[in-house]
């Protein structure tokens, strides 16, 4: 059973769609992706990459943030078919060989992670910022993460963590 078959299809029939290839965290994966399927559905439901979270599914909270060709984007608003040929990086792809990305390490060490539901999106937003601007000011950091809502931390330690990450 194709778990993403839409309601208006006869649900007991798996549609015979051509596979579409996506490059996620450096590996190419193929799946019979629907034309109106969001990148968040593809990642979470089809590929089992549940690091990106679904906080609102409306493009507001930022918990679904992933990097597409270096840009932080909202996976809940992006269509997977538009991402073919592009490099998609999810939070699962940030750590290399078990070594945390400096952003992840700083978030851990600064106590910036409480419930952690915002953390994957924030880590990606911060990584995208630092790739573009390795030494951002505090104000630039605040702007860069302003689309990632955190209900727990009050943001102070998140901003401190990103400042810490700029130093290594």
């Amino acid at each position, binding site marked *: *059973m194709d*778990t993403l*078959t*839409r*309601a*208006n299809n006869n*649900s*007991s029939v798996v549609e015979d769609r051509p596979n579409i290839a996506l490059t996620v965290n450096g590996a190419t994966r193929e799946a019979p992706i629907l034309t109106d399927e969001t990148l968040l559905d593809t990642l979470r439901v089809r590929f*089992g*990459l*549940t*690091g990106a*979270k*679904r*906080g*609102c*599914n*409306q493009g*507001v*909270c930022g*918990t679904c943030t992933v990097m597409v060709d270096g840009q932080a984007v909202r996976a809940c608003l992006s269509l997977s078919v538009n991402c073919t040929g592009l490099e998609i990086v*999810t*939070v*699962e792809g940030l*750590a290399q060989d*078990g070594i*945390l990305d400096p952003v*992840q*390490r700083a*978030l*851990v060490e*600064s*106590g*910036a*992670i*409480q*419930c*952690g*539901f*915002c*953390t*994957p999106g924030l*880590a990606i937003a911060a990584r995208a910022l630092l790739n573009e601007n390795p030494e951002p000011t*505090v104000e630039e*950091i*605040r*702007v860069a*993460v*302003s689309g*990632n*809502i*955190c*209900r*727990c*931390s*009050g*943001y*102070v*330690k998140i*901003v401190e963590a990103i400042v810490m990450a700029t130093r290594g």
Partner: protein
Amino acid sequence: MVESLTTGDLRAVGARLPREDAAEKAIGAAQYLDDIQLPGMLHTAFALSPLAHARIVAVDAEAARSHPGVHGVLTGEDLPRLGGGAIKDMPFLARGKVRYMGEPVAAVAAETPAIAEAAALLVDVEYEELPAVLTIEDALAAGAPLVHDDIGAYELSHPVEHSGNVLSRQEIVEGDVDAAWADCDVIVENEFATGAQYHHALEPTGAVASFDPGGKATVWSTTQSVFRVQAEVAQLLDMPMSKIRAVSPRIGGTFGGKGGAHLQPVAVALARRTGRPVKAVLPRSSDFMSMLRRHPAKISIKTGAKADGTLVARQVEVTLEGGAYCNESPAVLGFALLMARGPYRIPNVRVTGRAVYTNKLRAGGFRGFGNPQSTFAGESQIDELAAALDLDPFDIRLKNAIKAGDTWLGGQTVEACGLIDCIAKLRAATEGRSRKPKPVAGKSRGLGIACLAHVCGLLSTAANVRLLEDGSVTLGTGAVDCGQGSDIALAQICAGSLGLDISRVNYVNPDTDASPYNWSTSGSRTTYMAGRAVATASEEVKERIFEHAAEMMECAAEDLEIRPGGRVGIAGIPDREVSFAEVSRRAHWGVGGPIMGQNALMYDGERFDPKRAIVKGFPFANLGTYVFGAQAVEVEVDEATGSIAVVEGWSAHDVGRAINPLGVEGQIQGGFVQGIGYALTEELVWEGGALANPSMMDYKAPSAMDVPPSINPIVVEHPEPSGPFGAKAIGEPGLIGVAPAIANAVADATGTRLREIPMTPERVLRALKSG
């Protein structure tokens, strides 16, 4: 794989440790509710009431049932039991009537979320619309329609004084308020109003249920208590608790909104009906429309003082809007009243309150639990009184602040109390911040402060500590960490008691099959209550270790000491020691059996004075020990736009003892920012019976741009004798004084007093205009 944390020595208590699951969360590996995938799992959608108040004439779910891909549909008739708080008034799917727009009426389980949603739209309900009760005034009007036709027919889990749409009425009286006004040189009297705040946990509410072949259900959910889930599902579905296992995955924030059962009974009933695992996760709009909110309040308050600032009398009347079902309204009201005197010595006090039903979303527990409402009114009024007496806001508070040994409203003795210390440290930290407006081209700045108190304690909890064969330990309590950091704090208490490195403590994920018991992660109680159980259980393990070590080294147990790294030695003789591993192997394989410590306790503090009959209709026998704080903000008010920017924040809290200062700071800063949202932007707004802003776009929780870069935590430690290592609480306090501190800062900046929150730009402009 991520490296584990380490403390490496005896000082686990007081160490600035990140939470144990931080790295797991940082790499996206933490499993939250919606990350659970089970083979054959079905997905749930709800049909919601389109009306605020209506009789249900007929429900026809046939079209939904026969929709391809649908495996089960439930309506109110399938879930006949009522649940809820003190008044068991709530069906989990509406029955007989709908009482608010967005109330779940039917639930569909289908092969995909999209099929379930499409089928839910096919549930055909015939309604007969009734006049709706939409405001406190509506509810109290003579001849008002009744939200519940016959409260007397409901089962009560606590006695409540109710009538008409009033679901609870309570009173606390001390001294003689009516006579005392004559002794006052100045009396101020005002009305305050507070808004409906949405919990806004980033993780939407959800549950997954699955039956094993033996008929036992496992239910995972976004919850503050696996034990409440187990008990409530059992009661609602007529199942023995032994056939229900409740587990918590990682939790993406709760803030009081997930204390009781929500979707779990429906998910379990659908799993039972369909024979398949069932997941129910609310779309964000339904999470707004169908779950919980903070009680809006109307508060009339009058305070009188002598010319020197000595407080003489206070009278408070609180009315809470509770929404369609009782939930925790009587308890929230009781706590609002208990906090309405404020942390001051006032000999003559009368606080009275009502909570009313309306045809709107239920209100329930939310960080602060009635206290933010009372404190907004009370602390705003202290500043008004100070202004009337031409006294400094710090001075009037210091003059009247309660101290250890004083009694709280209701008669309980206050044990440790660092309030004066908090105020003094706050004053020192904000020194030099001008209290006088500095007008800069239409912008003015001001400083505002507020004091607060809260409690920690409540009900029962338990812990067990097992010494493993290699000398490490497994710690179980059943306390759910909703993100606030209790897992690491409890592990630190255990590690600190036993001198173990934190990496040697395995904290068991809450699971009713494996964990001892914890009532709930509610009321700022986990570190204090579960921590007490952990400390005592750890001590018991230590005693057993000493007994073994004394026999092994042929010495007296009294001569032994714990040494870092899981060893026990003879005091004064460095080379005479045995390791916990040696002790534990002896216990497992030779003498005595495995070493385990356990403790169970009920909060046993002093009770509210029942003899003097000063407390009426109050839902608690006792609550907890008191915690204190004082908060300050500097604001900048744009007099052209009416917008208020918080420039900097300070937050001083007596936590007894900071088990984990990093976590304490995070709680303070996070609470502070929720307080900024509560004060300035967050409000659920209704148009008629319809929630007008059920989306994160239209309901504005603070983003990183909306908060000051510096929120300075000031940690004050006056150890609580009954607390683990002296610890008390910090979960809720960070939010409580922020709104009045901001209102006081706005008054300082502009000379204008705002008595309604949120202080939106429109309200600010209106207030500035009317002077």
